[in-house]
Each structure stands twice: as structure tokens, then as C-alpha cells.
């Protein structure tokens, strides 16, 4: 052990010497610091004014301070939080449950929590890290997993809503799906990318039997693209975010000769979510790319139809990921002052509204008036601002 300690200490110090030289603090960083401090000072002044005006009791002062926030800025939902210090890998919302996948192999878990109370209902071990976690019609839970650096297996499970029962796809078939997404299509059916777009029919959770694949349509597979990093429904069709061998991404529609959305050289597609007759995507820069990223809406022919109020919105200048639920669009950003924002879209876009997240969320699930956000500390529940519903 002592030998390993010495080896690591020496090697890490040697490696640290290879770190780049500190670049100058960028003008943009300076502006953001100044803007943030101005806001903090203003908030302090408002609180102090409230106190000096006679609101001496701490609770009242706190109440006054909270009221100084814009009306559209909600406080975190008071209900509950889940602490998972190692972070969360994936979230999904069911009718009454919140599903949380967390941990590394061999300690990866999938847990079901009561959505209202946050009470842990049941948890199971997962033999690898989760890739896709989805809730299908009828409340069944779909989970695919894949080995991480520590090992583990490849698999696909269909689970009962309480996670107590499950059926498994045989490992060979699961490997054919690999890292591709799945899109629930029925109580025991999901669309998967397996030699084109296929309907996978699983035995009901807790039942034995063979899963079956039924080919639905072709999937574009030119230029080294294949599988589907993510699926989304788009005006009755299925859109797929595809990746090629050098990690370029594009969006296609399942079926022959469909349209293709290519974000262009140096631009990455960070996420994709279906939204009625359109798709919402976020783009971001590749290391050598020109873009700072955008939130983009595509129509059912994969043409860009982003409202100007969204494309030019400073609150969405550095988007990370996007999610949708009904008319609600929720996005995370790399902006520290507004890491989580939302807006309503129904023929037009509503105002972009801040959701005061405690940390930048890595995954989000939205349903009804509630936003579940997973960050580095666990899951926290926010009430969706009225402007976004």
C-alpha cells in the first residue's frame, strides 16, 4: 500500500506540472462576477432596509427578503429532497413514483420514491450503470444498463411500478441494443434501435418468456451513423438522435429517405426532447467550434423554426439540456445565475422564467406543476412557475 501511495503521489505531482498555464480571466467572466455581486449587494440592501424599517423579527425579515424576488421566481417546493452524495444518473417520473438511478457498479441502484412524500418505497441493485430509464404506458418502468469502468453487464429490464417484479431481455439481445435509447410504446412494448427501428415486446414483469422483436421501419445508417442516442416522438413519427464513430451527432426521422438535421461543423447537439409537432434541442460548442450554444425548435420536417424570443434570449445563451412535458419546456444552462429555466410553448413562447435551483441540475423530470432536479447532492423538488404551465 505504501508503494502505491508513493507512486500515486509522485505521478500526480508530475502530471500536475503538465497542466496548462493559467489563462487571463476573460472579460466575460469579469462581467459575470460584477453582475452577480451587484445582485447580491442589492439583495443585502433590501433585506437591511426591511430590518431597519421595523421588521426586527427574523422570520419577518426573511419573509421580506423572499418577497423581493420577482413574482415569477418561485421558492423551492417545500416538500422534500433526496440526498445522494454521489450524484444521480437518471430520473424518471411515474404516476405516483419518482424513479432514481444512482451509484457506480457494483453499487448502482434503482429506487422508487413516493412523489408526494419523498418516502423510499423500494430499491433494487442494478448490475451496471443505467443508460435509459423510462416510464411507459401503464406505469411500467424500462431500464437499460451498460458496463462502466468497473465492469458490470449489459441488460434491459421491464419492471413493475413498485420495482418488485421484473422481466429481463436475454443478454445477447440486450447487447444488440447496447447504448441506444428506448421509447416506451405500450405496457410491455418499446421501440428500440436494433437493426432498424424495432418494436420490442417483453414478457410482463414477473413473467417468464421470450421477448420478441418486430421490425417497424428502417433507420438511416449512412456515413457511419447508427443506433439512437435518444428517441423522441414527433408528429406521429419517431425522431432519433444519432451518433457516428467520431461522436458527431445528427437528428433523423425513422423511415426511408427522411429529413436530416445536421447542426453543422463544430456544433454539438447536447439534448433533444419531443414537444408536440416539433422538437426542442440544445446545441453547444465542440472544442473548436464557433457557437456558444442555442435552444432550437425543429418542425416535423426538421427545419429550424425557433421563435426569436427564445433564440435571442440571454437566459438561454449557454444551454445545456432540455426537457418537455406538455406545453412546458425546461432547460438547464451553464449560467451560474440561472442554471434552470423554463417557458411555456403553445403556438408561441412565453417568458423564460428562472427556477432557483440550488445547484446546476444534471437531470430533470417534469410533470404537472412539479420539477424534479437531480444535482450533485441528490434530488430536489421545485414547483413549476405558473408562467411555464
Amino acid at each position: 500500500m505504501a508503494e502505491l501511495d508513493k507512486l500515486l503521489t509522485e505521478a500526480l505531482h508530475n502530471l500536475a506540472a503538465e497542466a496548462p498555464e493559467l489563462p487571463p480571466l476573460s472579460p466575460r467572466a469579469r462581467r459575470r462576477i460584477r453582475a452577480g455581486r451587484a445582485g447580491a449587494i442589492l439583495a443585502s440592501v433590501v433585506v437591511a432596509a426591511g430590518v431597519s424599517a421595523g421588521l426586527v423579527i427574523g422570520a419577518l425579515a426573511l419573509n421580506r427578503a423572499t418577497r423581493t424576488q420577482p413574482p415569477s421566481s418561485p421558492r423551492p417546493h417545500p416538500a422534500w429532497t433526496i440526498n445522494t452524495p454521489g450524484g444521480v444518473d437518471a430520473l424518471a417520473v411515474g404516476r405516483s413514483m419518482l424513479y432514481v438511478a444512482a451509484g457506480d457498479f457494483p453499487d448502482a441502484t434503482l429506487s422508487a420514491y413516493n412523489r408526494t412524500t419523498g418516502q423510499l418505497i423500494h430499491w433494487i441493485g442494478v448490475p451496471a450503470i443505467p443508460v435509459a430509464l423510462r416510464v411507459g404506458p401503464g406505469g411500467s418502468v424500462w431500464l437499460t444498463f451498460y458496463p462502466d469502468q468497473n465492469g458490470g453487464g449489459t441488460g434491459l429490464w421491464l419492471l413493475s411500478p413498485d420495482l418488485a417484479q421484473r422481466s429481463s431481455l436475454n443478454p445477447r439481445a440486450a447487447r444488440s441494443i447496447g447504448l441506444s435509447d428506448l421509447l416506451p410504446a405500450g405496457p410491455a412494448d418499446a421501440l428500440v434501435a436494433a437493426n432498424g427501428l424495432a418494436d420490442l415486446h417483453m414478457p410482463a414483469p414477473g413473467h417468464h418468456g421470450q421477448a420478441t422483436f418486430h421490425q417497424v421501419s428502417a433507420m438511416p445508417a449512412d456515413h457511419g451513423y447508427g443506433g439512437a442516442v435518444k428517441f423522441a416522438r414527433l408528429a406521429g413519427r419517431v425522431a432519433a438522435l444519432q451518433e457516428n464513430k467520431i461522436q458527431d451527432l445528427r437528428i433523423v426521422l425513422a423511415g426511408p429517405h427522411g429529413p436530416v438535421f445536421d447542426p453543422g461543423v463544430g456544433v454539438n447537439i447536447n439534448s433533444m426532447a419531443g414537444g408536440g409537432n416539433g422538437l426542442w434541442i440544445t446545441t453547444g460548442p465542440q472544442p473548436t467550434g464557433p457557437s456558444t450554444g442555442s435552444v432550437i425548435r425543429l418542425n416535423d420536417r426538421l427545419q429550424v423554426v425557433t421563435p426569436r424570443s427564445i433564440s435571442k434570449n440571454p437566459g438561454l445563451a449557454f444551454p445545456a439540456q432540455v426537457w418537455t412535458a406538455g406545453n412546458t419546456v425546461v432547460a438547464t444552462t451553464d449560467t451560474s445565475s440561472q442554471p434552470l429555466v423554463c417557458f411555456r410553448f403553445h403556438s408561441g413562447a412565453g417568458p423564460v422564467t428562472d427556477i432557483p435551483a440550488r445547484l446546476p441540475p444534471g437531470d430533470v423530470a417534469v410533470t404537472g406543476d412539479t420539477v424534479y432536479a437531480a444535482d450533485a447532492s441528490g434530488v430536489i423538488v421545485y414547483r413549476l412557475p405558473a408562467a411555464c404551465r
Partner: protein
Amino acid sequence: MSDPPAGDKLEALYLRHGPGALRLAYLLTGDRELSEDLVQEAFVRVARRLTSLRNADSFQWYLRRTVVNLSNSRLRRRRVERAHLKRLVSSAAAAGVGTPDLVTKQAVRGAIEQLPARQRAVVVLRYYEDLTDQQIASALGCPVGSVKSSLHRAAAILRQHLGQEE
């Protein structure tokens, strides 16, 4: 003597704590460009709260914690992709050529890059930053027991990758 202007103070803080934060980010991510971006972002996040920090000495602690959190967040986003690429990546030790020190350094780099984000952070904070279990737990926001178990698991993996017997 009067206090330096706010801009000078900011510059002084950046020059004082930035290089260490950059080396930490580089060890955590293994990516020069990403580490530069992470440090700027971390500095912005902590500097914006500077007025609310009770003790200026805590700046370094907050900066370190923010660098670790941002690195873990970025690594988590990349983890599935890395798992996919794992089989394509031969061990750094096997690819290493040159002096024995270089081979060792590359082997350690390759082995650390195979660790999950949290284990990687624990290893870097222990063996590079020389923090105690309690300090690491504080930086990561996790129980001390988790630090110990992460360190144990990481050591086992590193030993295996580096061909060391216990």
C-alpha cells in the same frame, strides 16, 4: 494603507488561487481546454459570492469544492460515452514509450481516467492535494465513510491497472 480596488483584488485572488485550481481541474479531467474552462467557471461562481464569504481564507476551499463539483458534473455527462470507448482504449502503460518515469506517469494517468468521477476526485484530493479524509468529505459533501470506501475501491482498481499486488 487603503484597500486595493475591487478589480485589483479580484485579479490578485485569481492569480493566487487560479494556478492551483487549474492543476486540480487538469488532474480531475485530464483535458487541458476543459480544465481552463472549468477554472474560469468555478472562479466566477465563487467570486460572485465573495461578498457573502465570512472568511476570505475560505475562498480557496470554495474554489476547490466548486472545481471538483464542476469536474464531476462534466465527467458524469461523459461517463456513458467513455464506457462505450473503453474497449477502444488500450492501457496507457502499454502504449507508453520513453523513460521509466514517463511510462509510470502515463500508466497512472490511464488508470486514474478509468475511475468513476467520485473515486477519481478522492484519489486526486488525497494524493495531490494531501487532504485528510475529513477534508475530502467536506470538499465532496459526503460522509467520511464514503471517502474511505471510495478510496479503498479506487486503490483496488488502481492496483489492478498498475499491476501492483497488495
